[in-house]
């Protein structure tokens, strides 16, 4: 593969990590949704690029899904849900932005350390890509556990899953990629609908906090 091709893929993957950091940085829901849309766009670009350089046309489908579903439908849906459920716009954090960022740095470093032990194989792309994908995944998880707000947690999960797609597409000739991305989109749809159905206003917690105290046989 051409050097430039590798550089561009690399750039896109790196920028995905960057956008993840941006997500971590936000403290307003709408802003977060916009940033996530950007995240999805970058992913789309990178997938499309992979499809181009691997000339694997089926990856374009994945890119399309990423573009339509993640970059457009989901953000809009969430946006409307925020309005509908009257969720207030602040993002409640367990950990402040600063520490969260530091933790994120640590995670990226960890991802690098773990991945760079991998022997540079046929093409370096795989290794670098994996490192970035792993960081995106970890950052997504970090976001899920440091944000109290349901919507932001969904966003976290989705960016985690973006990392997966990045890895999957980066893995040259990996079968079932499209199916996987479809499956995941359905999963996310479930989650979003669930939030909507169960009227989970602020956080996943509310449901079981009540359940703890009122419903379970396990009353303390």
């Amino acid at each position, binding site marked *: 593969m051409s050097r430039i091709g590798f550089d561009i893929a690399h750039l896109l993957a790196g920028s995905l990590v960057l956008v993840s950091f941006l997500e971590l940085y936000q403290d307003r829901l709408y802003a977060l949704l916009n940033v996530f849309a950007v995240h999805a766009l970058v992913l789309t670009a990178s997938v499309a690029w992979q499809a181009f350089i691997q000339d694997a046309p089926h990856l374009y489908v994945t890119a399309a899904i990423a573009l339509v579903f993640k970059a457009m439908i989901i953000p809009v849906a969430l946006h409307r849900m925020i309005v509908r459920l009257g969720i207030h716009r602040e993002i409640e954090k367990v950990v402040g932005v600063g520490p969260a960022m530091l933790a994120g740095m640590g995670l990226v470093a960890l991802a690098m350390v773990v991945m760079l032990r991998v022997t540079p194989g046929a093409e370096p792309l795989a290794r670098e890509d994996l490192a970035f994908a792993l960081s995106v995944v970890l950052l997504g998880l970090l976001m899920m556990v440091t944000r109290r707000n349901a919507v932001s947690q969904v966003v976290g*999960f989705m960016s985690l899953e973006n990392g997966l797609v990045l890895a999957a597409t980066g*893995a040259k000739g990996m079968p079932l990629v499209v199916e996987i991305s479809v499956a995941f989109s359905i999963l996310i749809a479930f989650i979003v609908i669930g939030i909507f159905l169960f009227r989970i206003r602020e956080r996943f917690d509310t449901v079981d906090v009540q359940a703890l105290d009122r419903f379970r046989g396990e*009353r303390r």
Partner: protein
Amino acid sequence: MTIDAVAGVLAVPAAAAALLAALPDYRVTARLNVVATALTFACALSLFFTRPPPGSYLLVDDLNSTFIVLTTFVAFTTSVFSSSYIGHELAIGRLTPPFVRFYHAMYQVLMFAMNLALVANNIGLMWVAIELATLTTVLMVGIYRTHEALEAAWKYFILGSVGIALALFGTILVYMAARPVIGEGLEAMVWTALVGRASEFDAALLDVAFVFLLLGYGTKVGLAPLHAWLPDAHAEGPTPISAVLSGLLLNVALYALLRFKILLAANAAALAPGPLMVTLGLISLVFAAFMLYRRRDIKRLFAYSSIEHMGIITFAFGMGGPLANFAGLLHMTMHSLTKSAIFFAVGHVAQVKGTQRIADMGGLTATHPLLGWALAAGVAAIAGLPPLGIFMSEFLVVSSTFARSPLLAIVLVFGLLVGLAGLLLRLNGIAFGEPRGPTTKAEASYLPMFAHLALVLTAGVYMPPALVAWFQNVAGLLG
């Protein structure tokens, strides 16, 4: 003809699922459900005699045919139990016919998914199947639509999804490791091909992959600290599903773990998977053992005991070696049979007493002797008291471990003792003491319960040589 057996294991549930979704009447569907599972079990048995050659998608070897037979058998007995259980639920109006219909369809889908996961030769396919099974159970856990049921389902769903993601990442990594060696495309995901050339894979990549797979599938196995979904899912769903979850789904997830353990073991440079599994196993064992003490909900109690035993099994497989592996297999089988039997009993008890609160049950051996003694026997078995099967497996695990690494064995024994004390404490309250709660007669289906207990008892004192040879062979495969 040889393909038919495997095809049957998959096709029968699939077809049944479609059919059951279509049919309205409860009686018919319940019967049909039983018949379908029976058929599946028959197909599974035939796997012993005729075995298809490994394809790029499907594979049947000694390891998974053991699992398949166990799964289909317990699925069969559970469906028998479920017919009477669901009948009662309908009678008291806890479930409406449409939901029952949905339930039966989902039951078959679940069977299909688990069988698929077991016979899959392609790690991607295996992943898909396990996730399908997870999502199905999520739907069934929430089927009562009560607040806490929904809450349990939701928790299960979220944690499960994260698990799914992690497992997928692991799978991708394995593919990445395999691709340079095997080449692009489907072949690089075929397990037989992978294990054949695992020694040439990149060790570091395999390590990372295993970490993710361990966490991803470990969530399904219910290993602490990934267990959170398990107790509530068991407690709030219909009891047959609790039985299937404890008896089967956990095994299936564990099976996936074992496959990858073998893969890693085949690569000398990769880190030994044993210690990780041993650690997680011990953590789960001790943690669950202590959790038993504060349980007030009978189904949650046994859910935690499932965590405990999955811990033991993981520990045994982590230790490895012919003795420990044999013990692990035996323990897994015994645990599936016993735990599902216990859940059968618990289901009827909860229906009779109209509650799952242990405090509201008591003197069961006096009010419902059969149920009470069956439950007592089940608890004795699960607590590892002889002459029941789990005693033998625990005997083998502990004694073989103590000779190899005493400290581990002492932790193990400690956990076992704490768990036993916790279970018996609750059993005392349930089975003996002044009778409490309604004493109406239970219209229960005792057959599955006692069939399981009889099997467990037999295995405790006598195991047919054929079975032993089989297990030893499998234990050899596990390395």
